[in-house]
């Protein structure tokens, strides 16, 4: 095994060196002829690593080369995202992005390698993950309308836990606050949404804004009730929860996951990438995975994806200005 392995690798190496020496145009036709690195700017575990690995697993079959998933977590995903943005635009380094890392972090952090959507190449949008509001099962709020009525009566008194200040669940709640003029206080907890949920189950806050994957188990066990989803349409995991899109105030800040690449990839390679990722997203395998994990799918490629991220940039800016003025 070892010997065969080595011989194949030597051949690959020779091919690789030959490819390096060859001129640009032929490179595109040959792409991909070696392993592609897929950078995930988050640690394994949580919702981001599995979706990347699933995508890569299927893309691997499409492109017929190995995809190496590399986790580069840290600094609110900006370290790994920066590694993708700064990589050579040869199609051999791509990575995962989220609306938070791509559109929100540039507002918060100075000196990132990307300021807006022009700083990187948009490839494809993988999925949306709506934030949801859950209350303890014995809560006096049976519906989102009850919750809103109470929030109107006592501004600032209702408290919901979120997994850290300025995380997407927090931004979703704050954007809703801004649109509706209501004041629901967010209490930041840490620990990946677990401790935030615990605070709601223990009755220390009135509810918790988080994601389906963390809450589903508690809902099934009858300990938690999901009363709202921060999206335009109903969320298939919790069909009884009211979408914020159905309230008089349009507010739907979700978490969205994308695939990005460095700027300046030759068009032929891009076309191949688009085509391959389209096949992945249309396949039953990926769809089944998305449904099982509470993702909603809304595939967008290249410039459509770029447009959506520009919308998010604007929305996040509005929320930030709102929070500044409310201080």
């Amino acid at each position, binding site marked *: 095994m070892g010997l065969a392995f080595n011989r194949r*690798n*030597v051949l*690959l*190496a020779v091919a*690789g*060196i030959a490819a390096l020496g060859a001129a640009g145009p032929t490179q595109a036709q040959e792409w991909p002829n*070696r*392993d592609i690195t897929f950078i995930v700017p988050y640690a394994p575990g949580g919702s981001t690593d599995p979706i990347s690995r699933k995508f890569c697993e299927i893309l691997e079959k499409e492109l017929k080369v190995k995809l*190496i998933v*590399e*986790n580069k977590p840290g600094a609110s995903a900006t370290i790994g995202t920066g590694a993708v943005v700064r990589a050579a635009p040869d199609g051999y380094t791509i990575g995962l992005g989220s609306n938070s890392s791509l559109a929100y972090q540039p507002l918060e952090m100075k000196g990132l390698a990307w300021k807006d959507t022009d700083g990187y190449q948009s490839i494809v949008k993988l999925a949306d993950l709506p934030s949801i509001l859950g209350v303890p099962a014995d809560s006096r709020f049976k519906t989102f309308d009850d919750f809103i009525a109470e929030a109107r009566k006592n501004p600032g008194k209702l408290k919901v836990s979120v997994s850290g200040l300025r995380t997407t669940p927090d931004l979703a709640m704050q954007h809703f606050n801004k649109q509706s003029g209501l004041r629901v206080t967010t209490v930041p907890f840490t620990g990946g949404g677990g401790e935030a949920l615990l605070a709601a189950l223990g009755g220390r806050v009135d509810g918790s804004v988080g994601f389906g994957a963390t809450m589903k188990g508690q809902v099934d066990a009858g300990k938690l009730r999901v009363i709202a989803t921060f999206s335009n349409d109903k969320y298939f995991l919790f069909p009884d929860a009211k979408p914020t899109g159905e309230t008089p105030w349009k507010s739907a800040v979700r978490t969205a996951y994308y695939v990005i690449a460095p700027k300046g990839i030759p068009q032929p390679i891009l076309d191949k990438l688009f085509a391959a990722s389209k096949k992945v997203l249309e396949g039953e395998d990926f769809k089944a995975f998305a449904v099982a994990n509470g993702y909603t799918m809304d595939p967008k490629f290249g410039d459509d994806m770029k447009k959506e991220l520009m919308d998010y940039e604007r929305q996040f800016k509005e929320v930030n200005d709102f929070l500044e003025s409310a201080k």
Partner: protein
Amino acid sequence: MSSHTCSVATGRRIAAVAGLVLSAAYTFYAWRELDFGRWHRPGAAIFPIAVGIILAVASIAILLERRNTSNEVHGATFTLPAGADLRRLVFVLGAFAIYFVAMEYIGHLIASALFLFVAMAILSDKSKLRLALYAVVIAGSFELFFVRFLQVQMPYGLTRLF
């Protein structure tokens, strides 16, 4: 085998002064740069300022230690290496640091083999050929076990082509 003998009490005082300077800079940064927030939204500055004060108190407590008591509790002297011992230590640490820098460029496999060889050559007078063989075998087996088997993502540098 040579060494410098130094006084523990003096060394601790130097550490305490360093601690005081550090605590002043640390607290000043928190004061200037960080947000205090309000009681209902406590900011990021509060805890670092408390830590800065603890650091200052600890440093002052060390400055106030009496030399006799210190000698009794901590021993009077410690030794720092000199001559050949110092050179050995500095060379190994230097090679260690070069190894970090190199592994990003030439990859972990080659960098660790080179470092192993250099470090062994500093620490032993066995034949260079034998040490080089050891270095290659060890670096290779680490590569197999950690990178290939456990999938630790070490920098690959040049070796990605293989």
